[in-house]
């Protein structure tokens, strides 16, 4: 069997599938973003840049976009601050079976149902929920906490959802650092902080970057989490886009907003790429 035929027979089903489900839909969406209306039945549809114009005309959208990017940045930062030490402790301070078991314990929730985990937080945070109940039991007279349906609630839920991503990617790169390298550094007189900032962080940078990208992108596009935990305070660009498709049926606007969002995400990633290249 010649190579060409072999390669084609192995890869074409998967790539045809991806064409049908990713490439063509994204192209269709791009096409829609330039239409004046959804082309159903006999509606008059024309080409327009109006959908993109809307974004720049109404401050509402750009403010929401900014709010989403701020949320993305904050979630990513918190995940990094919480997750990196965790990955480090996991990789370097314990060994053997405990390590494997703990690692599994940490990443298991990561693959289990995201929706269910956000739902879990409503159980904890809501008025008369567990947290309020026990805090009032400990400190009578504290009264309602008012945590539910706030920005911090969304932040908490998202950090909880995405933290294991960061731990996973950082763990992989920290675990790959040879202990002898760290010992060599110590034998040369490097202190713990020097080792941490001059060796561990730079060597773990690929993991940090991968984790950050894998968190930042989906958080920007999140809509279920803000809706469930933020209620009326949970309006972000993701929820607006969702509305265009499920409630308002302004598909062209939703499409345009999606592409603006992806473009901006791409810009952010490009902005960070020199940092990545430096350490490659």
């Amino acid at each position, binding site marked *: 069997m010649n190579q060409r035929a072999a390669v084609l027979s192995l890869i074409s089903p998967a790539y045809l599938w991806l064409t049908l489900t990713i490439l063509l839909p994204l192209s269709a969406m791009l096409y829609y973003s330039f239409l004046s209306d959804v082309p159903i039945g006999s509606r008059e549809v024309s080409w327009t840049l109006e959908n993109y114009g809307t974004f720049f005309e109404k401050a509402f959208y750009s403010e929401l976009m900014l709010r989403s990017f701020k949320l993305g940045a904050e979630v990513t930062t918190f995940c990094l601050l919480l997750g990196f030490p965790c990955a480090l402790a996991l990789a370097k*301070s314990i060994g053997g079976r405990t390590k494997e078991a703990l690692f599994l314990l940490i990443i298991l929730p990561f693959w289990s149902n995201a929706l269910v985990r956000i739902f879990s937080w409503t159980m*904890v945070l809501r008025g008369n929920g567990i947290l309020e109940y026990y805090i009032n039991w400990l400190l009578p007279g504290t009264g309602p906490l008012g945590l539910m349906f706030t920005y911090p609630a969304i932040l908490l839920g998202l950090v909880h959802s995405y933290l294991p991503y960061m731990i996973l990617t950082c763990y992989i790169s920290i675990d790959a650092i040879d202990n002898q390298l760290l010992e060599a550094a110590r034998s040369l007189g490097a202190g713990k902080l020097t080792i941490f900032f001059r060796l561990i962080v730079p060597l773990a940078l690929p993991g940090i970057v991968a984790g950050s990208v894998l968190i930042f992108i989906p958080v920007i596009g999140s809509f*279920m989490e803000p809706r469930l935990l933020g209620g009326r305070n949970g309006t972000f660009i993701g929820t607006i886009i969702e509305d265009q498709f499920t409630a308002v049926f302004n598909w062209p606007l939703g499409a345009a907003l999606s592409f603006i969002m992806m473009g901006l995400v791409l810009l952010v990633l490009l902005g960070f790429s020199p940092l990545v290249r430096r350490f490659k």
Partner: protein
Amino acid sequence: MNFLKWIGRTYLICIVVFLYVPILVMVALSFNESQLYRLPIEWSIRWYEALANNSKLHSATVNSLTVAFLSTCLSTMMGTAVALAFYRYDFRAKRLLQILIFPPITIPWLIIGTAMLVFFFWVGIGRGLHAMVLGHVALSLPYVVIVVSARLKSFDSALEDAARSLGASYWQTTLWVTVPWLMPGIIAAALFAFAVSLDQFVISYFLAAPGVTTLPVEIYTAIRKGLTPEINAISTLVILLSMLLLLGVSRFYRFGGRD
């Protein structure tokens, strides 16, 4: 140093507690008698009994499992084939194709979901279980390729050469030598794909036809309508199933670990 290790371990425990406490709270409340989640908990299994009579949830469960089963079969076969092609051959555009397998992970699901909605509507595929299968396969493909490729990394290609030198044809070699060797990776990938499909909410949400939903979509709609402990009960079952599946995966695939 010991002091540092001690801090490290304590910190790890705190993280695990942070990750699990909400889930445990949710599970505990599924066994609470009170409709209004009144505390302290009075233990009861009435919400699980209620599940038994909820026909909407039954059909959503059947739908979820059907979609997960079909998309697992398809994505495992196609993904394994792709991983094999990447492993065995060097060809033009290989780098590009390797990158192109990842958009399902790196583009927000919101955008992929809405794009599928738009496109499927446009070309007449429409919404429903078939559309969900189409979408879920695309989402789990990259995971299958990653897991199977990880296993292939430690494959010695001399095994294939050896089989050929002993007279085995291309397909005999693939089926008798390569695939059996890959089996743990393929099983892990399949369980993974199953879990991904079962947990997938966003794509299913956009592609669900009226009256034809999956479990996560059903749960979401229920939450938005109003909280009842019945949702806790079904969520508990769902999360139990995912965890079991992933424990299964971990038997065959070391997440991020070195082989």
